[in-house]
């Protein structure tokens, strides 16, 4: 992986003009001197997880219609990012996701029911962040970038080999916190990777109203952070680029900023009406660049994916969706008493009084 020899990175902070890629939109391999095609088993795993991830996503959207989820922000069309980046992480690394990254979470191994707790409304967060090394899904935009930098810097201070990967959207790059995080990361040379999923919109606001630089990756320049522009619908390239950045970070080479150009196929959430601000044509053009189709075409052409394996993967996805349906169709158990339990390490006297008051009301 020639790109990342450190001196070269330092000299040229500018990202490439065109996004890096390893697969064309129809799945032909691209030879890029800067990127190495992942091994076959990795590609097969990417495929499998993307198929399962997409099925999960469809299922979650369906659950909103059945009133089983309060809201769901779909990442359909962004599976290369969601899956490619997570598979590129090592076990000891940390992931800092947003509300949109449920597929990344399940790919990381967080149980579906724990992943969906937030959106189901049972609690604010359903999993143990330390167990999975996955921070709670973050809603206040860009705030998670700073948490990632802090966690990564602490790892460095402790001499731990841990890299933090933080996910943000295109819109979130406009927030001051993104800027502060890139700068702290650069000054501290913290082992952190910033992955911007540029899916074209911040709710209804298109890139043209968000940023007029040649790319969002260009933002790295002002901090001395090497930046990479990558085709966000190319799972092979995504994996290669994130893996590379994680390695550089782990080796003490500091942060990397990655912008992945992708597209949000669904509306912002099930509650949004995307027809108000974009054309069906635009969506159709992006459907044509589907990340799952792309890797499937490549693996099929390479003879690595046959109908049998395709069927196995599809069956796994269906079975997974069924299990998600099942757990999510069960009524959530909520306990009003829990409201007071976690506010402080020990409930204060006031909270105990308030808990008693509520218990009395409910008695």
């Amino acid at each position, binding site marked *: 992986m020639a790109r990342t020899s450190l001196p070269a990175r330092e000299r040229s902070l500018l990202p490439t003009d065109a996004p890096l890629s390893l697969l064309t939109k129809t799945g032909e391999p691209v030879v890029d001197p800067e990127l190495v095609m992942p091994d076959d088993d990795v590609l097969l795993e990417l495929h499998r997880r993307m198929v399962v991830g997409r099925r999960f996503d469809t299922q979650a959207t369906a659950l909103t219609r059945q009133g089983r989820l309060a809201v769901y922000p779909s990442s359909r069309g962004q599976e290369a990012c969601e899956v490619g980046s997570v598979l590129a992480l090592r076990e000891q690394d940390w992931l800092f996701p947003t509300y949109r990254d449920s597929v990344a979470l399940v790919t990381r191994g967080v149980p579906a029911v724990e992943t969906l707790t937030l959106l189901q*409304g049972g609690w604010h967060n359903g999993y143990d962040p330390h167990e999975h090394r996955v921070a709670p899904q973050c*809603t206040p935009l860009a705030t998670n970038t700073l948490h990632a930098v802090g966690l990564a810097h602490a790892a460095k201070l402790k001499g731990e080999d841990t890299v933090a990967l933080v996910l943000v959207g295109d819109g979130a790059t406009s927030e001051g916190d993104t800027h502060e995080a890139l700068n702290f990361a650069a000054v501290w040379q913290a082992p952190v990777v910033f992955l911007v999923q540029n899916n074209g919109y911040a*709710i*209804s606001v298109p890139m043209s109203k968000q940023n007029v630089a040649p790319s969002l990756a260009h933002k790295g320049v002002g901090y001395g952070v090497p930046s990479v522009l990558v085709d966000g619908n190319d799972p092979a390239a995504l994996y290669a680029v994130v893996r590379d950045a994680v390695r550089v970070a782990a080796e003490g080479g500091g942060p990397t900023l990655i912008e992945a150009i992708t597209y949000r196929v669904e509306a912002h959430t099930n509650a*949004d009406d995307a027809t108000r601000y974009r054309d069906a044509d635009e969506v159709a053009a992006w459907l044509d660049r589907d990340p799952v189709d792309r890797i499937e075409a490549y693996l099929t052409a390479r003879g690595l994916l046959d109908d049998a394996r395709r069927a196995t993967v599809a069956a796994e996805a269906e079975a997974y969706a069924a299990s998600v349906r099942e757990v999510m169709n069960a009524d959530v158990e909520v306990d*009003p008493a829990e409201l007071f339990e976690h506010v402080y390490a020990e409930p204060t006297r006031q909270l105990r009084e308030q808990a008693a008051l509520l218990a009395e009301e409910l008695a």
Partner: protein
Amino acid sequence: MSTLSMSGALNMALADALEADERVLVFGEDVGPLGGVFRITDGLAARFGDRRVFDTPLAESGIVGTAIGMAMNGMRPVVEMQFDAFAYPAFEQITSHLAKMRNRTRGKVEVPVVIRIPYGGGIGGVEHHCDSSEAYYTHTSGLRVVTPGTPQDGYDLLRDAIDSPDPVIFLEPKRRYWSKGEVVADQRRTGFDRALIRRPGEDVTLIAYGPMVATALETAEAAKEEGWDVEVVDLRSLSPFDDETVCGSVRRTGRAVVVHEAAGFGGYGAEVVARVTERCFHHLHAPVLRVTGFDIPYPPPKLEEHFLPGVDRILDTIGRLQWDDEVRGA
């Protein structure tokens, strides 16, 4: 006169203000073609053009900070924060600049900015979407803080806010966006900073604002059964506070309860209790009590019903107002 939801009334107020004064600008996240996530700005970009109604980059400090600069140059920006908790990134601009600009420049620089913030819970929103942040703003000298409880006030107070030479934090009770009522445009009869007695009563004053006005009125109806004649005061202007109307009522009834969604500790209700007690001490038959959210972060959707002040909890609290007068004494 027409029947409108509060969101419709707010939309009409914005349209009428844009029509009436070309210095008025509306901007923020998704307020353009989308019309805002709550559709309060629906149709305005199409009608007034994207020089007057426009989407900004996603940055709240940026929105408020540039609004201040625009106001310095004669504009009257009306900006939207998408949800309550997403106004926090703008806290420094609001507190250190918006609130202080007039004072620090001895009145030479006016910054008539209106910040619209949908606030409060009751809509099944996930974390960070249901904060009641009024206490942060009401404690900040130099800001006006108002909140409508009815569609008519949605219209009137927003027009007043836009006309005001002072910066205004305009808190929109998001769970009441869809409540309907009669709305008369362009005929603002109640002063911008006056409270209103929404329902007269003899026995106890229920002090509410924003989303709790409807709950207070409901409680007043239910209280009849208990034999209590409840007076409901809608504060409307949280800052400045209308001592006259509120204390007038409490002096008459001798008992009062303040209701709000925000956590009680250090909440706005504390100020109401403190000033009413100070001013009406000898008219009080019982301490002024509060019914508020608990001192916890806003709960997840499936638990919010336990958090939000409702009719029963308010009635219980009224019941604790020492109706048996002999109990009273030093």
